[in-house]
């Protein structure tokens, strides 16, 4: 056996194991595509052309936010041409004449009650869902890891206090608490991220605490103590990397959960402030037109479902990949 093969790192093994699970890989690809859509949203759906040339003058209207030209009326000739994004509407472009149009015609997924293109709103809504999921879970993973590590490593009184704190937070109906706090705050995407982050950490904290309780009795910790490593170093350099795998798994499921929560909040009217588009907000419009406007229900709901499923698939694959017992 060559040196290289023997030195295969733990995460390399996990990755190889993960790749064997085809369904999980599909989930990962889906997540990747969603991120690409989110990042490229202004290029995919915009009411301004990517590149336009008028009388030989080439310009990039998509970059010029103050541009008030009505590009839709642009008349193409040999001197005048334009390259359009695939979806020729912006998510906030109101066209009352074309309100509540069913899919087909100019609007692939129909329009909402202000004539805004649902496709464009869905594409831009990807940004809200993905960023809220990612940031909120990052916040609570950091909090959870920190508190869980302290509780598990020191035990005794520290553990007692932190465990009570976990129990207190677990008792609250989280969704209702989030609603209440958001009702006090001005509507903004950052408030949603922070409130989701501050209320979601108990699961991670319990997990990390359990891992640390197990790990701190293992010899390598005593060895590190014996050579005089500081508590900080032992916690974050020695033990934490060894207990990161389950945290990563729970964070992946957590993102799915956070996306669900964000869309529920938006559905109830506590999402990002208008006119910013989000999937939950499009769905909330469907309430009023439920008799006929099926496109306002089906498409955004399916987008939420697809995203949540993708993250859950990745989470499942990761869980099986990091768990040596399940091989």
């Amino acid at each position, binding site marked *: 056996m060559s040196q290289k093969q023997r030195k295969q790192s733990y995460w390399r093994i996990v990755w190889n194991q993960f790749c064997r699970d085809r369904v999980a890989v599909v989930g990962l690809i889906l997540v990747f595509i969603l991120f690409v859509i989110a990042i490229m949203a202004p290029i995919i759906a915009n009411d301004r052309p990517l590149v336009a040339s008028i009388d030989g003058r080439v310009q990039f209207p998509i970059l010029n936010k103050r541009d008030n030209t009505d590009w839709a009326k642009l008349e193409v000739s040999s001197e005048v041409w334009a390259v359009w994004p695939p979806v020729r509407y912006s998510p906030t472009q109101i066209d009352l004449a074309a309100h509540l149009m069913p899919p087909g015609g100019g609007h692939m997924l129909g329009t909402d009650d202000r004539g805004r293109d649902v496709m464009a709103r869905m594409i831009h809504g990807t940004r809200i869902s993905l960023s809220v999921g990612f940031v909120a879970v990052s916040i609570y993973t950091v909090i959870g890891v920190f508190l869980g590590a302290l509780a598990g490593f020191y035990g005794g009184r520290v553990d007692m206090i932190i*465990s*009570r*704190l976990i*129990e*207190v*937070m*677990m*008792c*609250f*109906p*989280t*969704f*209702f*608490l989030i*609603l*209440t*706090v958001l*009702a*006090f705050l001005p509507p903004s995407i950052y408030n949603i991220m922070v409130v989701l982050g501050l209320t979601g950490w108990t699961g991670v904290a319990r997990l990390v605490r359990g891992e640390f*309780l197990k790990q701190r009795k293992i010899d390598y910790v005593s060895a590190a103590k014996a050579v005089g490593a500081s508590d900080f170093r032992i916690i974050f350099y020695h033990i934490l990397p060894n207990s990161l795998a389950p945290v990563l798994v729970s964070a992946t499921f957590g993102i*799915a959960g956070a996306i*669900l929560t964000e*869309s*529920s909040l938006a*559905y*109830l*009217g506590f999402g990002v402030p208008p006119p910013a588009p989000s999937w939950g907000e499009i*769905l909330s419009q*469907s*309430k009023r037109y*439920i*008799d*006929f406007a*099926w496109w306002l*229900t*089906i498409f955004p*709901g399916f987008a*939420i*479902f697809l995203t*949540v*499923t993708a993250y*859950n698939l990745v989470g*499942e694959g990761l869980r099986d990949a990091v768990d040596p017992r399940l091989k």
Partner: protein
Amino acid sequence: MRLRDYLTRRLFLIIPTFLGITLITFLVIQLAPGDPAAMKLRLSADQAVMGDKVTQDIVEQTRKLYGLDKPIHIQYLIWLKRVVTFDFGNSFKDHRPVIEKIAERLPITIELNLISIFLVYLIAIPIGVMSAVKQGTLGDRIVTVGLFILYSLPNFWVAVLLIMFFGGGEFLNIFPIYGMATPGIETAPLLSRLADHLWHLILPVFCLTYGGFAALSRYQRASMLEVIRQDYIRTARAKGLPEKLVIFKHAFRNSIIPIVTLLGYLLPGMFGGSVIIESIFSIPGMGQLGFEAVLSRDYPVVLAIATIAALLTLFGLLVSDLLYVWADPRISYEAEL
């Protein structure tokens, strides 16, 4: 540690948790922009029906209600006393005692959630067990995928879809989508009133149930798989016990312990679900009351609901832990505190 010591300790630990819960709701009051009194003033200003003197009176009343004119630690003690005596003041909206409003709405939420929890367990346990026993077969795989999909479906979307397809409009009109009773049914005989009630329950209960049983079936399956791998199951098989006995007497009974004790952890989620589902189906329960209170910034109601729900959950967790001790004599009391 002996069982009795564990129980005493567990019961005593409720005190700090209870204080923590009241402290958090107290902090939420402090977080309110301005203070509740000023908020209430703005609320009345919106309604523009009250004179200056009246609004001033309301501010004073509210200040007194929350003790906002006193130092902060005294304010907390006042809040604590109010929680203990279940005195949550009057609603900003209709000036009725909050506790009375909640008592009115609680039964229907409890009914919905009890039915849902019962159905969750009734469906989840057999599915999980069968799926584990037949691990790897086509049936197991179909069930696993199906549960996975159910688990990822947003419940408010499912609710809206059900209303769209089964609640009239362009599609089928099978189920009622509004409230808990058909208007005018009050005079009908008991049996048809009961049938009408059940008819109204079907859609909301379905929405509250499917996510829970999908999650729980997966736990049950994992738990059963874990147990089946144990040595004592191999022993039972080796000594020639029929497979049925091994599965249902030896394995099943042990696999169900962690599932039953999950009950307490289900509660906070169930209430969150009630908020959305009751709002969508216009069911006059605690969830709808809470959501309306949040919308109209009716703080006394909001805080009372958050506090009561948290205390109910605290009780649920305690029952869970006690169930665990009762069901599984092997657990070490040291570790699980």
